[in-house]
C-alpha cells in the first residue's frame, strides 16, 4: 500500500472531506498560506480558497466559538489550535458551551465540529508549547477525545470525526507528523470508540496512546528477544473508551502497564487502571497495574531534560522487565 506521513494523511482526510461535503471548512491561525505551523494544511488554500481555509487573528476563544456557532447552525467546521497548549484560552467556549449545548438544550441541538490540536513534547519548544492536555477533556461530559498514533489511524479517525455529529477534540502529535505508514487512497473511517490491538502477546498488556504506541512497539521488539511478548493496545479514542479489548487482554496476560506522555498525576492512566480494576480482569491480575507517564513537571527546554521528562523506549523495556520479574 502507498505510504504517507501522518501529516499527509491528516491533510488528505481534510481534503477529501471538503471535496465531498461543502459544509466542511478549516479555521485557525496560519492555516492558509502558511499551511499551518507544522504544514498539515499546506496546499489546501490553493484548492479551496480563503472562504473555506480561514486564517484567523490570534484569538483561540474566537476560533472555538466560531466552530461551535457554525456547527450548531448546520456547518461542519474543523478548528485548529496551532499548539494544543493554546487551547487553555479556548476552554470556556469548548467546555461550557460546545460540550454542553446538546444536553442543555434538551437534545435538540447538534454541535458537529472537530478541534484539531498539536500536542506533545520532543521538539525543544519548552514548557508552554509541549503539553499533553487530553485528559482535561476526557473529564468533560459532552466531548469526545481522539488521539491517533499512526498515519492510517490519523486519516480514518479524522474522517470519522468530521462525520460525527458531536464535538471532538482531536489530539495530534508533533513528533509523529513526519512518521510514515501505509494509508489507503480512498476515504475510509475508523469508528470513534474502538480500541486497536496493535500487537498480540501473552506476557503483559501495554495500553499506550499516541506517540507511546510506537515506543511500546519498539520496546516489544527488544523484549521479544528476551522471550517476553507484549500485547499492545491503543485505545485510539480516549472517550468514548472501548474497554473490552483491554479487559480481555489483561485477563489473558494478567499484567498491565499503561504508558502515556501526559503527566502521571490526574492523567488518563489513572482512568485506565480503574477500568481494569473495576472489571472482571481484576481477579486475573498477578501484579499491580502500573503507570508509566510523564514526570509531574512542566516540559524543560534543555534537550536532555526534555528527553527524560517523558517515557522513552528504554523506560518501557525496564518497567516491563520489572513487572514480569515480580519487582514492583
Amino acid at each position, binding site marked *: 500500500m502507498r505510504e504517507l506521513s501522518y501529516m499527509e494523511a491528516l491533510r488528505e482526510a481534510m481534503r477529501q472531506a471538503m471535496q465531498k461535503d461543502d459544509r466542511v471548512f478549516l479555521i485557525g*491561525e496560519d492555516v492558509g498560506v502558511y499551511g499551518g505551523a507544522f504544514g498539515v494544511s499546506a496546499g489546501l488554500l490553493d484548492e479551496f480558497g480563503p472562504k473555506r481555509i480561514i486564517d484567523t487573528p490570534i484569538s483561540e476563544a474566537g476560533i472555538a466559538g466560531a466552530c461551535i456557532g457554525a456547527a450548531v447552525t448546520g456547518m461542519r467546521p474543523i478548528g485548529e489550535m496551532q499548539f494544543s497548549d493554546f487551547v487553555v484560552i479556548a476552554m470556556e467556549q469548548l467546555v461550557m458551551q460546545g460540550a454542553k449545548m446538546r444536553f442543555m438544550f434538551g437534545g435538540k441541538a447538534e454541535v458537529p465540529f472537530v478541534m484539531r490540536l498539536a500536542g506533545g513534547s520532543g521538539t525543544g519548544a519548552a514548557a508552554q508549547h509541549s503539553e499533553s492536555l487530553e485528559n482535561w477533556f476526557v473529564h468533560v461530559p459532552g466531548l469526545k477525545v481522539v488521539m491517533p498514533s499512526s498515519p492510517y489511524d490519523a486519516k480514518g479517525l479524522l474522517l470519522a470525526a468530521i462525520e460525527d455529529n458531536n464535538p471532538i477534540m482531536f489530539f495530534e502529535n508533533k513528533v509523529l507528523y513526519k512518521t510514515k505508514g501505509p494509508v489507503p487512497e480512498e476515504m475510509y473511517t475508523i469508528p470513534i470508540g474502538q480500541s486497536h490491538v496493535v500487537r498480540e502477546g501473552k506476557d503483559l498488556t501495554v495500553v499506550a496512546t499516541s506517540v507511546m504506541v510506537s515506543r511500546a512497539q519498539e520496546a516489544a521488539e527488544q523484549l521479544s528477544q528476551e522471550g517476553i511478548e507484549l500485547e499492545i493496545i491503543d485505545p485510539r479514542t480516549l472517550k468514548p473508551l472501548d474497554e473490552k479489548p483491554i479487559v480481555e487482554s489483561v485477563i489473558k496476560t494478567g499484567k498491565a502497564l499503561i504508558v502515556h506522555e501526559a503527566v502521571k498525576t490526574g492523567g488518563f492512566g489513572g482512568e485506565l487502571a480503574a477500568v481494569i480494576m473495576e472489571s472482571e480482569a481484576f481477579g486475573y491480575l498477578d501484579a499491580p497495574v502500573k503507570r508509566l507517564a510523564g514526570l509531574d*513537571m512542566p516540559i524543560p*527546554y534543555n534537550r*536532555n531534560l526534555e528527553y527524560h521528562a517523558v517515557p522513552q523506549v528504554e523506560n518501557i523495556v525496564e518497567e516491563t522487565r520489572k513487572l514480569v520479574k515480580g519487582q514492583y
Partner: protein
Amino acid sequence: MPTSSKKEKMIEGVIPESKAHELLYKMVLTRAFEENAEEMYGLGKVHGTMHLSIGEEGVAAGAGPALRKSDYLLNTHRGHGHFLMWGGDLNRMMAEFMGKEAGYCRGRGGSMHIADVESNNLGAQGIVAGNLPISVGVGLSIQMRKTDQVVLTLFGDGAANEGAFHESLNMASIWNLPVIYLCENNQYAMSMAFERAFRVEQISERASAYGIKGLTVDGNDVVAVYKAVSEAAEQARKGAGPTLIEAITYRWKGHSKSDRQLYRTREEVKKWMEKDPIKRFAAKLDVDEAGLKEIEKKAKEEIRKAVEFAESSPEPDVNTILEGIYA
C-alpha cells in the same frame, strides 16, 4: 529618565550621547547574537525554535533604556533585544539559549522563557498576550506598595487580538495603573498581515476604547521610541495611568525557524531593510560605516566569547530534573 551631567550633549534633546553610543552597541550586539543564534541552529547546536528580532532593534533600544533599574519588564517571545537592553548578561543569556545550567533559567526555560527576576525582568513569553493580564497585577502591586515603579509590557500586533488584551487594558485604565503597553507592530503575526487582522488603521486607536492615551511612533527610530516611553513613564509615575504605544517596525527574518515566508514579497522585505534602525541610529550619532564596522567587530568578538562560555559550561544534571517542583 536617568540623570546625566548637564554638559553632556543630548541626542535630539532626549538621549545623553554616551548612553546613545551604548545603545547603538547593544543594538549591534543583539543583531550579532541573533545572527549567531541562527547559525548555531543550523549547525544543530540548539534545538527548539527561536524568534529573531533582526530589523526591530530600534524598539528595544528605545524602550527599556528609557526606564529605571527598579522598573519591571514583561517581555515577548521576540525579546532577545529587550533582554539585553534591560541589562542582561550576554554569557548567561547565551548559556540559557544553549540549555546550560549557567543560563538565567538553568537551561529550563530557553529563549522563549528567559527571565531575570533579580532585575525585575519577569520573563519572555511563550503565550501570545500571556503577559498582558500579569502586568495588571504588577501595576496593582506597585500601587499597593506605593512605589513609583512602572511596568513595561511588550507585545506584538498579533497579541492585540487576544481577549487578554482587552481585559488588561481596561483594568489598567480604570485603576490608573502604571503600565506602559508597548506594541511592536512588525506588520505580521506569523503569516497574518496586519491589514487582514485589523479594521483600524493603527492599533493605538484602540486606546480610546479605554479612555487612555495612545500614540503610534516609528519603531525604527530609537529616539522616537525612547521619547514616547519616557513620557508614558512620567505619566505613570504621576499616577496618570497607562499609555498604549504602538511602534511601527518590521521583522526581516521569518517568524521562526519553519517559516517559508510565502505571505510576503522579497521586495517588501528589501524596502524595509532600507530603513535599518541600526544604520539610522548610527547616522544620528555621526558614526560612519567604518565606525559601525568597528562596533560590529567588537560585538562579534563578545558573542564568540559568550559562545565559548556557554559551550564550556555544564549541562543540567538529569538527577536534578525534579528540583523545584512543589506540586
